[in-house]
């Protein structure tokens, strides 16, 4: 990763973590509640949306290999529209970080340390997350690259172990088209993380013929999400709603019924590592968007803004299960307009509009 640029492999690894982390805890249980066994249909639709974003990025990157997304937007839509767009991206990142942190906090509080308060978890998470984010894309990318093989092996191990407990055959064809559509809308905000690619567009350096690596890693990540969901559904079926933390629960099921000691600790460690990376990436996205809105300010201000808003919102607004689910299913889906409606429109205009020359304001 020279000159702070990212190669195809590194983009692939970043996408792998981004597309996986926020979908392996509460999402499978919530999806089953609406979609029942047809949860795979909802997943396929949402996967298609996510892959659509990556395809749009690919086409845009091929057309404008060296330009930033911000400069392209400014050339087409003007300064203020661009600033508003990036403010929305900031809100989107903040919202997703809030949801991820809350889900992880509730998970740890339930299964590890019920007496711990929010401050303790904030102290455990934030210094490392902030350090990762402000150290730049290079540090985040290299750290992820280092951990990547271990992460993949551990996830595959969890799924493999989970398969031992997946013996239930629940009722099929229970959900209606309306229920599936509702489920797609409710959980669409768990997707759309590929927006990160547009923020680091000028830093992405992918050689010809290497794009398949990016698509392969993204697809692999989504396939793993699908596998975790289906293993969870076939393990718990009708009692899925009683088990909100999918990856942990599929390991826990085998632990309890297979007598495999504390094998669920593997899932806990994996969730900790992934959460650190994902929160760092959300903060990085926030910082990059902040820089585009408030040009010339030091990174301190963007990080301080994020941390201040984050701590305030976490502490006073959504720090419990019901509020977290309400926030994730009723509020955050409207934020998904950004990656799945606004962004595609912008990209299509950039793709089919006149060609913007490099350096053009």
């Amino acid at each position: 990763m020279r000159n702070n640029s990212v190669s195809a492999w590194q983009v692939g690894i970043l996408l792998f973590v981004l597309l996986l982390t926020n979908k392996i805890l509460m999402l499978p249980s919530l999806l089953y509640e609406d979609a029942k066994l047809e949860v795979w249909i909802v997943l396929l639709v949402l996967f298609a949306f996510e892959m659509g974003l990556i395809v749009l990025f690919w086409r845009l990157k091929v057309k404008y290999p060296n330009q930033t997304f911000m400069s392209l937007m400014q050339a087409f839509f003007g300064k203020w529209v661009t600033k508003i767009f990036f403010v929305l991206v900031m809100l989107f990142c903040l919202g997703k970080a809030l949801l991820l942190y809350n889900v992880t906090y509730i998970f740890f509080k339930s299964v590890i340390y019920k007496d711990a308060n929010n401050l303790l978890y904030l102290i455990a998470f934030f210094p490392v997350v902030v350090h990762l984010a402000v150290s730049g894309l290079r540090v985040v990318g290299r750290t992820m690259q280092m951990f990547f093989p271990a992460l993949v092996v551990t996830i595959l191990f969890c799924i493999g172990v989970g398969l031992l407990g997946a013996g239930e055959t629940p009722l099929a064809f229970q959900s209606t088209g309306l229920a599936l559509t509702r489920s797609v809308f409710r959980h669409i905000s768990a997707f759309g993380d590929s927006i990160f690619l547009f923020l680091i567009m000028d830093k992405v350096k992918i050689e010809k013929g290497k794009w398949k690596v990016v698509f392969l890693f993204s697809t692999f990540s989504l396939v793993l999400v699908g596998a975790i969901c289906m293993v969870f559904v076939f393990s718990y079926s009708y009692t899925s709603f009683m088990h909100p933390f999918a990856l942990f629960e599929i390991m826990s099921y085998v632990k309890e019924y297979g007598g495999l000691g504390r094998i669920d600790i593997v899932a806990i460690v994996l969730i900790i590592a992934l959460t650190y990376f994902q929160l760092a990436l959300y903060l990085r996205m926030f910082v990059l968007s902040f820089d585009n809105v408030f040009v010339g300010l030091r990174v301190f201000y963007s990080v301080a803004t994020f941390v201040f808003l984050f701590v305030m919102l976490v502490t006073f607004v959504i720090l419990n299960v019901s509020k977290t689910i309400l926030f994730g299913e009723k509020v955050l889906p409207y934020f998904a307009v950004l990656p799945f409606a606004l962004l595609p429109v912008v990209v299509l205009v950039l793709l089919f509009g006149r060609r913007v020359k490099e350096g053009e304001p």
Partner: protein
Amino acid sequence: MTSFLKSLAKVPMFWVFMAICLIYGTTSLGMPAEIDRYAIVTAVGIDMLPEEEQYEISLLTFIPIAEQGFAETYKVVSSKGRSISEAIDFAGLHLGREIGLSHVKTVVLNQEILNENLSKILDYLSRSEHLVSSTKLVTTDASAKEFLQAAQSLDSGSAIKISELINFNDEYIYATDSSFESFFKGYFGPTRVSVMPFLTLKSSKSEGLTAVGDQGEQNSGEQSAQSKEIVNNGDAIIFKDGKQKVMIDGIDMKKLNLVHGNFNIGTIVLENYSDDHFDNATLTFEIVEKVMRYRVDYQNGIPVVGLSSRLVVTLSEAENQQGMVAKNIEFDSVDQKMLEAIKQKVKNLMGEAIVLMRDNQVDICDFYTLLHNHNKREFSHFLSLLDDQNDYLNRIVFKVSVDVFVK
């Protein structure tokens, strides 16, 4: 060294690490030890006191006392409350410790509360983040408190423990296990049927799998020193919609196992069998392997379920009228007549199991899901034609076929 420390001091993460160590380290040093904070509960008993409109909770509790080693002190503590959570809170007050439920292996329910909707009674425990979902549920004819008092000595010293008795059931006797998870899967599933083992508490020796404990009264301080036996005859209670529907004995449970398929072992007893070697003999065959296959077909809109069972058996006992058979028959090939007799016996047993399910409208084998997933439209049409949709088992045609092989 000095230069190393100076360079370390320039790394921000070093200071973060130091801060975390200081904050967490001092916090944990100031906290009381968990063994002083928690009473570790290994079994919970639930009784209902209708006259007082209260629940009585009994907790088989292990109180760790740190000396040179850890003395294992078990105690049954009871408390009453208008709800389970209130009763458990009071139990905590009696013990002077928080109630730790993470080590609970068994929850004992008195038979009298089974007519209530059990899901309501188990609500508190099922919501507990610490009670594992594989915790076994057991019903008993005695009060749950007495049951736990009998179990107390077992848990502290005996070779057989209650949870082991139930584990034995899971693997060898029952068609389904009896955990919280399986109870709620049945309750929330399409059949709304769950099964729970029924253990009896008797003063004298009884048949069945028993675990004996010398019961000493704990709470009042009186020493009754009465010998009690927890007897497991393989009996079970079948629940529908969370309420007791029917109680069946171990023999009927074995029949159901033949249809259900999820069991590891069992026996088939052939009575009054005669051939060249035997004269009115009682032959017991052990099932070594069993493969059950279901096939669904519709004839004139009526579902026909084919139950095809493939059994591998071995002769484990022969009681001949004319004394012991001198010939080493285990090594002989079993003739066609004997195979036919076993097949017929298994068919009859499976037929009786189906009648039992039909009569009580309890679809233990979950034929509902089988039929629904096979052809949702035809099955829905079939159900719509029924006067009582709960009675679907009586309208399904079952065709049983059995293949027996001798090992």
